[in-house]
Structure formats: C-alpha cells, structure tokens
C-alpha cells in the first residue's frame, strides 16, 4: 500500500543524494514552493517578485546543501531556515534589519479589539503586516505561515525563544489594532 503512496520528503531526499535524481528534487520543489513563497511574500511586505527570487535562491541553496540535511528535522523546517537566511541576507544588503524587540511599541490589551473583522482582504493583511518590525514579521511568518512551533521558529530565525514569543505577542497586538482601524464602522 505504501509503495503506491506519494514518496515522503525523506525518500525524495535520499533519491537526490544517492542517485542525483533531479526529478525527485523537482517534486520537493513542487511540494513546498507554495508555502515557501507565501512566507517570503509576507517577509518582503508583499513584494512578490523579490519573494520569488528569494524562493528560487532558497531552493538552489537547498540543492547545494542537501547532503548536510539531518533527517531528525522536517525538511520544511530546514528549508524555511534557508529562506529566512536568504531574506535576512537580502535585507542586510539594503539596510540593517532590526530583529530585536521594539520596547517602545505599545502593547494594547485584547479588550480593545472587540470589533475585529471576521474576514480581511489579503491586501489589508499585507499592509498590516508591512507595519510590523522585521523581527515581528519574521516571527509571525515563521509561526503562522511556515507553521513552525515557537521552538522551531527560534531555531529557524536564530533568535532566543523568549524573543520569538514576545515578537509574536507584539505583532498580534499591532495587527489587531491595524485591522480594527481598517474596519468600516
């Protein structure tokens, strides 16, 4: 039964490593491209062209470094780590990215946001995400879009676990504030 099922990521990786099987790698790309590109689109504040360039760079780097993949981790976790690094490198070319906690940012209580809309357009969400600090956006991208645990996000982003949690908390407070303000009364 299992032989008829789609091969797992691990099986595809083994095929690439042992037989230099490009078709197997193509399947990995097809399987993960959507999530990786979505994460990068959020990180790049909706710049789809840049996000796709970084996604391509991510998969090329994965190809080059596949022999260093450790099978204890999920392939997706590993590739998100590469994607985050690619984004950070790109951002550093343009400016210093700030992954530290913005202590001056206000932390509003959840009671302020009873009027949170049920549905938000992608455009509004992208705009709201663009207002977050780099660290906050990275934490949200990792924990929601890449679906990593806080611990996995901490490893992928190279930041302490407590910082990830703080970024997520502050980012959500900011997003709620932005999205409520957007909602027509």
């Amino acid at each position: 039964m299992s032989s008829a099922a789609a091969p797992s990521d691990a099986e595809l990786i083994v095929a690439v490593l042992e037989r230099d099987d490009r078709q197997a790698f193509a399947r990995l790309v097809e399987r993960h491209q959507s999530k990786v590109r979505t994460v990068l689109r959020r990180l790049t504040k909706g710049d789809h062209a840049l996000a796709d360039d970084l996604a391509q760079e991510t998969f090329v780097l994965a190809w080059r470094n596949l022999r260093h993949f450790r099978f204890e981790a999920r392939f997706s976790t590993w590739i998100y780590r590469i994607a985050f690094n690619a984004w950070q490198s790109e951002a550093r070319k343009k400016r210093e990215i700030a992954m530290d906690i913005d202590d001056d940012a206000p932390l509003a209580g959840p009671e302020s946001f009873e009027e949170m809309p049920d549905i938000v357009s992608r455009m509004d969400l992208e705009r709201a995400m663009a207002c977050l600090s780099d660290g906050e956006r990275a934490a949200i991208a990792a924990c929601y879009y890449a679906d990593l645990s806080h611990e996995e996000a901490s490893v992928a982003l190279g930041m302490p676990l407590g910082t990830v949690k703080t970024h997520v908390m502050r980012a959500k407070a900011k997003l709620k504030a932005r999205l409520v303000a957007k909602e027509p009364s």
Partner: protein
Amino acid sequence: MNATDKLDRILRRDAAEDIADEGFAARVMAALPAREPRRQSGLNPTLVLGSAAVGSLLAVAFAPANANILQGMIDLYQHHALTPAAYVSIGMSAILLVSAALLARDA
C-alpha cells in the same frame, strides 16, 4: 470568538492559500547548478589502502633483523619494552589506524 481567535483564524486562512506553481519549479530546476561530483568513492579507498600496504611493506623491509610484528606485540605486552620489533609493531598499528580513520570518514 475573541479578537485573538479571529486574528489567528485570519492568519491561518491566509497562510493556507496555495500559490499556483506557474512555472516556478521549472525555473528553479533550470537554475540548479550541476552537482559537484562526489568524492570518487573507488579512488580514495584504493589510495588509502595502497598507501597503507606500501607503508607496511616499508616498515617490514627496514625493520631490524628478527624484528617481526608478532615479536613486537609480545615485547610490548610482556615486557613493556620499546624493542626494535616493538617499534615496527607500533608503526604498523599506526598506519592501519590512520587508514581505518580515513576510510571511515569517507564512508
């Protein structure tokens, strides 16, 4: 449902939306470099084992008369003495250890 739940749902819904491939995977595959040839697995063991064999032969050839490996082992074990035979024995052991380590690293 409170605001936090709503936001979680909004984010998860947004994250779940698929981006169509639209040639992305093909572009990635076209951009892949040729894989660097792996270390030639047949050559390295041959070199290592060949070197070990030559080293061993040299150790035996230049060993003093009557200094065979077995005698060296016995000298080391029984007398803890660094006799000429013991030196040959230690040299051979070192050669074999280095060979084994190199082969294990490349395995």
